[in-house]
């Protein structure tokens, strides 16, 4: 038995990779078709992959945060403060986890709308679409249970609103709510923890197994860039811990941005369940049933003006209700008046926004236009490409050095900004790298 001989180390590595790939064909991995694009392609098409990558980041950072977090009503807040202030690198871990959650919600929304406007829920994609909508709802629930674990004033507002809504649900409410509440907050925090770290992520992974398409685009420059963006945003807007929950003190608080739209509904003073749960649910129901209503063969939104207008109206409503949810009129004397949203103006604005969306869509947007000129790709000469790689590499090193320097000087948020910048520049460098390897490829 003679061992195979390889002339170079590279040959041996290539042989090992080939060996592994051939054996992976016996596993479910063979069903996937991974594409590593050789040039820039629009990220709209693989926003789902980016969402999944951020989900992975959340899984890793969240698992590490579990080492220090205590899901106990008297220790939760102080343990988060310990992570943020005392644990080495705890600040970075917490900020990554927090801001990655924002990115995940945002990327999921963009993913939804790109797929919506390009009609991807058709062409036998109904199962992918419906599981995607359920994944989106689970993503928000996951984020909701997550930020409640801090047990600060903002968390208590969210818990109390959420539990109040559950309680007020007709028929099932008083039966379901105690399952989440247990005997009180000392049970609730443990149950939310179990939901956040295990039950909801497990459900999401199971759904993901159905939701993930077989053709996957892995664009490393963009993935690294998104990771860098999380760090940059975290460095610029580090999340606060807030004030420890105390139900005997009043504070004007606003929930996380993906929930302020529901918050605005509740502040109109109309019946709690009707305004806070049923109306937002209409949104979810619309997206759930759209593949079964829009039966036309057309894919482009320009050919489907009604659904294009509905999509635009929903975006406008999300923006307006979200901004309204943040608005607090501090000129009023009492907290109640500061937070009150006039229901007549609020609900009638929905009608106006919908009408305006339909008008703009039919009047301006869906008009057929001439074919857009194909984009002319920018091609760098091999020399310029090499220079671009060299410059970005130098900048990656500079920002990496600055990150270490600022962290050592106890400025973790500025350090995170520099880490993010070096990641983004690494993404750019990867792009220049693949571009230049293409332009300097040996002719065959």
């Amino acid at each position, binding site marked *: 038995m003679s061992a195979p001989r390889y002339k170079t180390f590279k040959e041996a590595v290539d042989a090992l990779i080939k060996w592994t790939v051939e054996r992976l064909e016996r596993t479910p991995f063979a069903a996937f078709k991974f594409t590593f694009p050789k040039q820039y392609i629009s990220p709209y098409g693989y926003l789902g992959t980016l969402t999944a990558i951020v989900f992975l980041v959340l899984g890793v950072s969240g698992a590490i945060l579990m080492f220090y977090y205590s899901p*106990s*009503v*008297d220790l939760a807040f102080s343990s988060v403060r310990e992570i943020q202030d005392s644990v080495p690198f705890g600040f970075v871990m917490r900020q990554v986890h927090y801001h990655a959650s924002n990115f995940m919600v945002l990327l999921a929304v963009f993913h939804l709308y790109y797929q919506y406007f390009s009609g991807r829920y058709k062409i036998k994609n109904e199962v992918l679409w419906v599981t995607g909508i359920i994944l989106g709802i689970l993503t928000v629930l996951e984020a909701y249970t997550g930020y409640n674990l801090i047990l600060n004033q903002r968390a208590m*507002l969210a818990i*109390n*609103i959420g*539990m*109040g809504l559950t*309680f*007020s649900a007709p028929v099932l409410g*008083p039966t379901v709510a*105690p*399952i989440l*509440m*247990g*005997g*009180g*907050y*000392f*049970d609730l925090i443990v149950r939310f923890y179990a939901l956040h770290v295990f039950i909801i992520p497990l459900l999401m992974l199971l759904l993901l197994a159905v939701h993930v398409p077989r053709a996957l685009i892995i664009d490393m420059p963009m993935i690294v860039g998104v990771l860098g963006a999380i760090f940059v945003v975290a460095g610029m807007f580090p999340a606060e811990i807030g004030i420890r929950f105390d*139900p*005997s*003190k*009043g*504070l004007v608080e606003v929930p996380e941005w993906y929930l302020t739209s529901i918050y605005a509904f509740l502040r109109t*003073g109309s*019946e*709690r369940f009707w305004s806070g749960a049923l109306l937002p649910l209409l949104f979810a129901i619309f997206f759930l049933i759209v593949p079964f209503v829009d039966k036309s063969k057309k894919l482009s939104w320009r050919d489907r003006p009604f659904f294009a207008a509905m999509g635009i109206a929903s975006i406008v409503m999300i923006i307006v209700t979200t901004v309204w949810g943040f608005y607090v009129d501090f000129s009023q004397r*009492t*907290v*109640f008046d500061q*937070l009150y949203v006039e229901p007549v103006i609020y609900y009638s604005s929905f009608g106006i926004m919908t009408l305006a969306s339909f008008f703009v869509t039919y009047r301006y947007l869906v008009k057929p236009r001439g074919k857009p000129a194909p984009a002319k790709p920018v091609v760098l000469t091999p020399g310029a490409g090499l220079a671009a790689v060299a410059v970005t590499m130098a900048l990656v090193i500079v920002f990496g050095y600055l990150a270490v320097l600022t962290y050592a000087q106890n400025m973790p948020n500025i350090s995170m900004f520099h880490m993010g910048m070096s990641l983004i520049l690494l993404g750019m460098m990867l792009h220049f790298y693949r571009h230049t390897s293409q332009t300097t490829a040996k002719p065959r």
Partner: protein
Amino acid sequence: MPESGASRRRALRAMLTVAVLAVIAPFTNLVRFFYREETGSSPRQRIANISELKPGSSIFFSYPKTGDPKIDGDPFRQWMLVMTNDGKLRAYSRVCVHLWCLPIYVPDRSELMCPCHGSIYRDDDGVAIAGPAAFQPYPTNALPMMVIEVDEKGDIYATGVVDGRIGLGREWRVRRPDDNVRRV
């Protein structure tokens, strides 16, 4: 005979269904796992003696008391024994029916006031008269009450009988507040 073959298959299926249902049935009890059942706490709990209260004063107490500060400090176990300015005894849940903050007693105005969003409750029946709680429909606009007993020595006991649902409201048109105070 094809006829009896079909009916035999139907009978087989029916028997299998019955067996599967019989296996599942006892498991439905598992749902009780999700609800914490109170154990080891006595329903009758002494709150205070009436001599400790004067008109226009209040005493906070947690019910059911376990001795574990983490559990006893839970908002849903916070109660308030109030003696109104005209000497009536009332035991209210402290959980505001709007968003579960903990109201306090303001004797000068004969009101209970919530610190968070300014809900105001009357002190003699716990019904919200202003603020967001007052906007909520009946019966979600009144504080739940605890039925209390006052014995001949003046000791006041919480009975554990709650008129209403904590954090949610009370059917205050059905039962008079005075019915929740018993002399024994």
